[in-house]
């Protein structure tokens, strides 16, 4: 069963007339790790927005964990996102005035489901994830997000995406602000943790040499069912 399924999805931003995506078809299986590649402006981030339920999509085009995203009203989509998805962005992932641990626990504020999936105290789980992602929870856990290095921030963001074991992790260029070495170790750890949690991973990246962390690489040009 596919965890993410996009079928015959076309999208035009309200402020423009040009279709970003046309008849896109695309699936990601449960516990599959997929790398999405494509030129700038080809609609990768738009596709992520559609899957995460931030933009309005037609009924029957996008479904996640068996739920038709287009059929949900906006407020339910927010709840659904909190329950089923973990998101990581390129930069500025963290609320600067919250501590690393508080940032990691943010999804638990909005999702009962993810709270319920954590056995034991929430803090402990946040610490476990930090340690698993190569961060020292005792020194970095209480420090303000704004005091962390960019590489550390991205790991905290990854921990936040992973907490409460969501079905899907969406990552939009999470490594592009990192130097090559950090990049490699970040990918290694993320990939490992995603595999451990059994989530599906859909990641957008321009970076070369990340293929080995993924089960499959998809080019944007392959998405459109009809020509293009």
């Amino acid at each position, binding site marked *: 069963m596919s965890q993410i399924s996009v079928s015959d999805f076309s999208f035009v931003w309200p402020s423009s007339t040009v279709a970003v995506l046309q008849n896109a078809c695309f699936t990601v299986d449960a516990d599959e790790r997929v790398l999405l590649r494509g030129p700038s402006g080809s609609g990768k*981030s738009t596709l992520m*927005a559609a899957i*995460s339920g*931030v*933009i309005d999509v037609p009924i029957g085009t996008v479904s996640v964990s068996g739920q038709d995203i287009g059929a949900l009203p*906006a*407020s339910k989509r*927010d*709840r659904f*996102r*909190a*329950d089923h998805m973990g*998101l990581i*962005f*390129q*930069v*500025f*992932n*963290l*609320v*600067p*005035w*919250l501590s690393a641990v*508080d940032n990691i626990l*943010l*999804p638990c*504020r*909005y*999702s009962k489901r993810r709270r319920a999936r954590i056995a034991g105290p929430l803090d402990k789980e946040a610490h476990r994830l930090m340690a698993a992602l190569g961060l020292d929870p005792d020194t970095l856990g209480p420090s303000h997000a704004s005091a962390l290095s960019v590489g550390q921030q991205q790991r905290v963001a990854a921990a*936040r995406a992973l907490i409460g074991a969501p079905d899907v992790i969406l990552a939009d260029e999470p490594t592009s602000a990192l130097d090559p070495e950090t990049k490699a170790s970040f990918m290694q750890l993320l990939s490992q943790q995603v595999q451990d949690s059994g989530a599906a991973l859909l990641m957008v990246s321009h970076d070369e040499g990340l293929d080995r962390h993924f089960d499959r690489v998809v080019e944007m040009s392959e998405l459109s069912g009809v020509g293009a």
Partner: protein
Amino acid sequence: MTVTLVVQSLLNRRFVASLTVLAIALSVALILSVERLRDSARTSFANSASGVDLIIAPRGNDVQILLATLFGVGSTGTGMSGDVVDLLKDMPGVAWTVPLMQGDNHKGFPVIGTSEAYFEHFKHSRGEALTFAQGTPFADPQSAVIGAEVAQRLGYGLGTEIVNAHGAGSVALEVHDEAPFEVTGILARTNTAVDRMVFVSLQGFEKLHAEAEAHPADPLAAHTKEDHVENGVAGVVPAQVNAAYVGLSNRTAVLGVQRAIATYTKEPLSAVMPNVALLQLWSITGTAENALRLMSMAVVVASMIGMVVMLSAALEARRREFAILRSVGASPRDVVLMIVTEALLVTASGIVLGLLIFWGAILLAAPLLSTQFGVTLGNQMLGTSEAALLLTILCFGGLASLLPAWRVYRMTLADGLTTKL
């Protein structure tokens, strides 16, 4: 849940946030003080005036007569014949009369010459009689009875000798040091103007003036006065008094008495109903009161605008923060709720701090107001109307936050999860 997040966010901006809280606190303290002062002044005045049905005085302005007699502020000017008091006593519907003589002060406190009937009949604060904390009413013409505030402020006790000065103000123009009085009674506190008064017997008061005016321009007047004092017996009304209080046994008699006074031919007199005169006084002071209220409300509004400015100014800088919150599952509604909660929290903190300032101010100002103006500040922590006012301010704060909240709502919808700026 939202609250802990909001508190953390506000702590992050604690400098601007605390300035905003302070602004609201000061405006709240101001508006509460203005209201309390106004209410207290009115209650104090109403309480002082509640037990007298009519004040008879030489014809003059009602408010001036009221202030001079019941509050010891200013004077009624000329005197009226003592016969009037005897005349009033026999009118139908009149239960009692109390003659008053005025024009002296003791260290700034008004001195009233009156009969023992005063302590028997005068009522304050909706029908409460005067009671003695210590001592008794006048024992002889040289005895004095003092109000609670006078006793406390000046540290007087029974047996203290006091000397009065001529004039209504605190400036002693002419001291009657040749005729000291002895305190024989101290009244229990009433929280009205009575607390600030010194009472002496009519005989004592008159004797003082008779002696002071031993060589007056009008030898005839002096002569009659001295005559009167010589056969001065308690209960006899002197030839000249300044005013008289009248108590009615029957409320409807008020018209008859008023008519009799208005048509009294021997001298022009006024019959003042204290409650009516008070209303006149309020209509005079009302404009100033309203201006003051309006101003304090404007200050509250200004502080609210300050809060909206604080919230709005931060929105741009917080765009990213909102996008992050949305990416972890916050709905635009949650974000709006954060802004409104923030506003309510800031307003509530301002109100709480304002209350503390207000209570502190009352504690400091109460003794001063009581001695200087005879106004006793209500000592309740928070009246219902004041609580309602605070609730209104809180609602207003929440309402004002809808403006930035609306902006943030539009923003989060437009931004989505885009965190690039």
